[in-house]
């Protein structure tokens, strides 16, 4: 019985992970320059910011810009080290090794993007430590190997520091291996341009949507956990573009998405009626 077959033919089909068309991304500060420098110096990058502010889009843009495959892992609390690194699977009467997404990225020189890293268990995130310092190695304990990262490999991860949860935080030993890029919601002019570009809605209406979003953001901590994100605005703008009345679109696209609390919903509806 063969119990240790090595599945080394797991070089990825690049076309699956390469982004061919330029994603729309409007830089809000110097994030592109910082990322480029980090990439040149092989320093991992931590993207911090509220939900829907453009972290994932930024990664897609940088992947396209550098023509490097992007492997995205959406982290969750059931994510284990094996899910990232790889595991033995059973095939017929033998076991075969299957690389996980992180190992695949390390072998193939991809950008590995761990989205919402704080959702993963703490013992899982520790596995990335040797990859994030000057060693740039990934220990594959079950194979008894130390996998040296390809020169093009880059590790990035993102999280939302705004979650009011004590259990969702990064260990200091993890966070101190990264350079951090802070993302916030864009300023009004930039956000209006983004919403217009993404949805095709006339700029005048985008201005009102952005104003509404800022009003909801001012309510954070006063009934709302988070304000309306740029992504929500784009969704709403698309509804308006398709012919829905702005009030209806905002109620579906923003108010009802943000809260289930009746009192807060009434207030959001008032805001919408104030703007539209």
């Amino acid at each position, binding site marked *: *019985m063969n119990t240790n077959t090595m599945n080394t033919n797991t070089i990825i089909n690049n076309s699956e992970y390469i982004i061919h068309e330029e994603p729309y991304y409007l830089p809000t500060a110097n994030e592109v320059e910082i990322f480029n420098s980090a990439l040149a110096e092989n320093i991992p990058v931590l993207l911090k910011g509220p939900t829907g502010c453009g972290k994932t889009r930024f990664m897609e843009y940088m992947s396209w810009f550098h023509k490097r495959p992007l492997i995205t892992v959406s982290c969750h609390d059931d994510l*284990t*080290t*094996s*899910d990232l690194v790889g*595991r*033995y699977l*059973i095939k017929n*009467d033998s*076991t075969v090794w299957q690389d996980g997404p992180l190992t695949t990225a390390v072998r193939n020189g991809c950008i590995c993007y761990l989205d919402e890293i704080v959702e993963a*268990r*703490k*013992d899982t995130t520790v596995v990335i430590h040797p990859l994030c310092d000057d060693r740039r190695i990934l220990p594959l304990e079950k194979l008894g190997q130390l996998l040296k990262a390809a020169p093009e490999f880059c590790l990035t991860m993102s999280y939302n520091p705004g979650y*009011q*949860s*004590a*259990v969702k*935080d990064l260990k200091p030993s993890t966070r101190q291996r990264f350079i951090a890029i802070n993302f916030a919601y864009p300023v009004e002019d930039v956000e209006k341009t983004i919403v217009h570009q993404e949805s095709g809605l006339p700029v005048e209406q985008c201005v*009102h949507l952005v*104003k509404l979003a800022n*009003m*909801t953001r*001012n*309510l954070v*901590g*006063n*009934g709302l956990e988070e304000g309306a994100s740029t992504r929500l605005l784009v969704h709403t703008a698309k509804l308006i573009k398709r012919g829905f009345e702005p009030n209806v679109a905002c109620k579906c696209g923003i108010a009802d998405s943000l809260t289930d609390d009746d009192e807060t919903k*009434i*207030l959001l509806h*008032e*805001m*919408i*009626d*104030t*703007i*539209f």
Partner: protein
Amino acid sequence: MKFIIDWFKKQVKPAQKVIRPSLLESKQTGSCGGMSTTELKIRIELILDGVKTKDSIMGSVTQLAGLSHSLQTQFLDQLSELSELSMSHAYSVMLVYTPSIKIMDSKEHSQWIEQIILSISSNQLDEANSLIKNYSQFNLQINRSTTSFSDVADVLEKLIFSITRQELALMSIDLSANQRPYTNGKSIFLPESISVFDNYQDNYLLYKVMTFQLLGQIQLQTNSALKDIEEGVTEYGDHFLDIFSTIETLRINHYLKKKFPGIWKNILSIHEKLTIETYPEHIFSDHAETSVFDSLSWIKQFGIKQRILDSLPYQSDFSPEKLSKHTVDSGSVQASPIMMNIDKKSSEITEDDDNNQTAERIYFKHNSNSEPSGSTNQPDTDIWQNLADNIEHHQAEQKSLRDEQKQNSYLYPEWDISLKQYRNNWCRVEEISTEHDIDESQITDDIELKFFEKRIRKSLDLIINDQKLIRNQADGDDIDIDAWVAASSNKTKHADDFQNIYIRNNKNSRSVAILFAVDISGSTAGWKNKIIKQSTWLLSRTLANLDDQYAIYAFSGAGRDHCHIYPVKKFDENYNYDIKQRIFSLKPQQYTRMGAAIRHLGKTLKQSDAKTKILFVLTDGKPDDIDSYRGDYGIEDTRRAFNEVKALHITPFVLTFDKEAMDYLPYMLGKKHFRLISDITMLPIQISTIYKQLTT
């Protein structure tokens, strides 16, 4: 504009901050913290001044004693107001007050009292008698189209906050003197009620437009031309003010049209419904930014003598006395260095100027060296002196604070709902060691406790067992080689044998710190105190088996200077016999000033390095203390305190025996952060169950 006059005439209630219905309703059935029959009787007798015999009011007093403290206070205020008009009517109202409040909601009840006061004031005593006698019919007669300030204030206040991020307080105003809405820059003053339209929604929209007009007045800095408006009024009288008010209202409308199209729609709708003539909106360019000086300029162009516009229904008060109430900060003063002189006799007006309409009567002068309007050297000196005094006072206060804190005494702020601001260093919290003055026999374990302990252990064991490797799983982190070998070696080799060959690694990722805050106010005396102590002891015994950090503190006190915290078990202590002694030596103390206790214990819990921090409050009633810490005040302060600990990433949870907790806890904490237990004897089991739910 008859409707405006009618509308003004309807407003006669004196200026006061309205109690929000959401809070008021929540207390209609509350009894905790209310005045006793003796106290009520004395107060009523003082107000009614012996109008009837003592015996005749006892029935009503007994009924009133069942009301919450806030309702009792409201009753006494209203009774006092009525007694100044008519003692006999006040007495009659007292007799039916409790039944009336049970069949009317807070809004209807306020209207009923208001109507009685109106009738007495206008000498229609029969009508007042009829209103009192037929109180049960009143809610069927009232005009439901009227929109009152209390209905809309909360939403409008939050709406304004969402735009400005500043807490602009909304207040109701006395319109008996035909006052229009106005603002002082920090508060917005609106009518007590509006019944211009025959439906509620339109009246509400009028409220909304008024609010945004005043917001526009603040944002567009109308008050920056105060001096010029004063000069205009001095020279031309109220006629100037009428024209300026309308033109400035139009300018603000123009701003609202651009910034808040929804409000602009509301304005157009109001105009249409009231058939208001079309106003010359085009006087302000669509694109240019305007200032109050543009309004003044337009008046000059148009000519001061003519009158073309009637006032608008949502128009606010632009009189110099109201504008001068604006809080002037240095920024706004510096932002308007242009001084305007509308004196036609100014020597600087030339013949050529006469040919230019704009410059004909208006002269702008940039005076960089001039003092800000209304300022002199003397007040400047005072400002610096005040600042120096303030710094000195602050330093002395800080030193005093440091000295205080060295002696296990801490000062905390308290939220004053009426002022809408914190009272700094208001409560003194002291940590007091628990004395072990108990008899050993009191803490002997009995059979019932052993039964509870067994159940709690069983429940919490599941948490401990939850931390092991689980084999033979259908899915997992790794292959369970043993299971696979077993399945492979099975001669029959059923497919089912290979289904459960994974191993799941449930590593211990618990990092929990929980602080139990136990209310030992006087109301817990007797069997409640015994059960609280037993539950606390059982839990501390069983929690010792887990790795979770836990601490137990008791709290009580009397007054803001004596908020007492009794440490029973600190985080850095292990469970031992000494702690058991401390638990059983807890005795009921005095009152429940919950806000200060929560702030102090939140600060203690914050120092823990655990990932999950829980503040578990065990109490038997709502916040209550001497010095008026009760009713709205206590609830609002406690709510603030809970929000503050939430901001420290601490999860608050309240377990209460108070049957009326549903009236206030959802508001204080949110729906998911409390539990009401009806059978206190099940407290030990309930605590452990909730503990498990909170931490897994």
